[in-house]
C-alpha cells in the first residue's frame, strides 16, 4: 500500500508540473508527447500487438508532409 501511495504522489507531482508550464511550453511538450506516443504505437505493432490506429497514421502522414 505504501508503494501505491508513493506512486500516486509521484503521478500527482508530474501532473502538477505539466499544469504549471506556460502555454508555449505545454504546446512544446504536446508535440514531443505526440512523437513519443507514436513511437510506442509503432513498437506495440512491431511486437505483435494492436495495429497503429488510423488516426495516428494520418498524423504520421501529416508529419511526413512537413517541408
Amino acid at each position: 500500500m505504501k508503494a501505491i501511495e508513493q506512486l500516486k504522489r509521484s503521478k500527482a507531482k508530474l501532473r502538477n508540473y505539466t499544469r504549471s508550464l506556460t502555454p508555449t511550453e505545454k504546446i512544446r511538450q504536446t508535440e514531443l508527447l505526440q512523437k513519443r506516443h507514436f513511437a510506442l504505437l509503432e513498437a506495440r505493432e512491431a511486437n505483435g500487438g494492436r495495429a497503429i490506429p488510423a488516426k495516428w497514421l494520418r498524423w504520421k502522414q501529416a508529419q511526413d508532409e512537413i517541408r
Partner: protein
Amino acid sequence: MTDPELHWSVVIDVLNDMQAQGILAKYAIGGAMAGILHDEVISTIDLDIFFFFTKQQSGLVLSMEEVYDYAREKGFVFDHEFIHIHGWLVQFVEASLEPLWRESVERADIMVIDSRDVPVMRPEHLAAMWLSAGRTKDRVKIEAFDDSGVIDREKLGDVLTRFGMMDKWKAMQRGLSAKYQF
C-alpha cells in the same frame, strides 16, 4: 518554409492569415488542445478550430468551400474531416449556429503562445461542451478540470443555467468534488 521550433505556431499563423484574408471573422481553439492549454499536457493529435465566417452564408446548407479553397490554394492535404497544416490535423467547425459554441468563441480567453495572441475557449465553456458531447473521454476531461480546479464554479453555473444544461450536469456530477456539485 523554415523549420519553426513549434509546428503549432505555423498553424496559428495560417489561421491569422485566414482572418486577414477575410475568410474567418473570428476563431477560437477548442477541444482537447484548449484543455491542455488550461490544464495538463495529454496526448492528442487533432486541433479543433471553432470559427465564424466573415461573409454571410447564402444557402440553407453550410458550405465550407471558402476554407477548402484556401487550403487548396496553400497546397494543404485534405484527409477526411481534417486539413493537414504543418504536421497537425486541423478540424474546422463553423460555430455560429450553435449558441453554446457561438458564445464559447465570442468569449474566448486570449493566451500568448510563442509570441502570438491565441484565442482559447474558457474552461467553463469547454466543460459545458464536453457535457453536451457526453462521451466517456469527455467525462475524463471534466474530471481532469475538476482535479486541477481550473473551472470557476460561478461561471460554470452561469453557463449551465443559461444554456439549459444544469439538469444534465446534475445527472453527471456524482464523483466530482463538492465545489462542482450544484
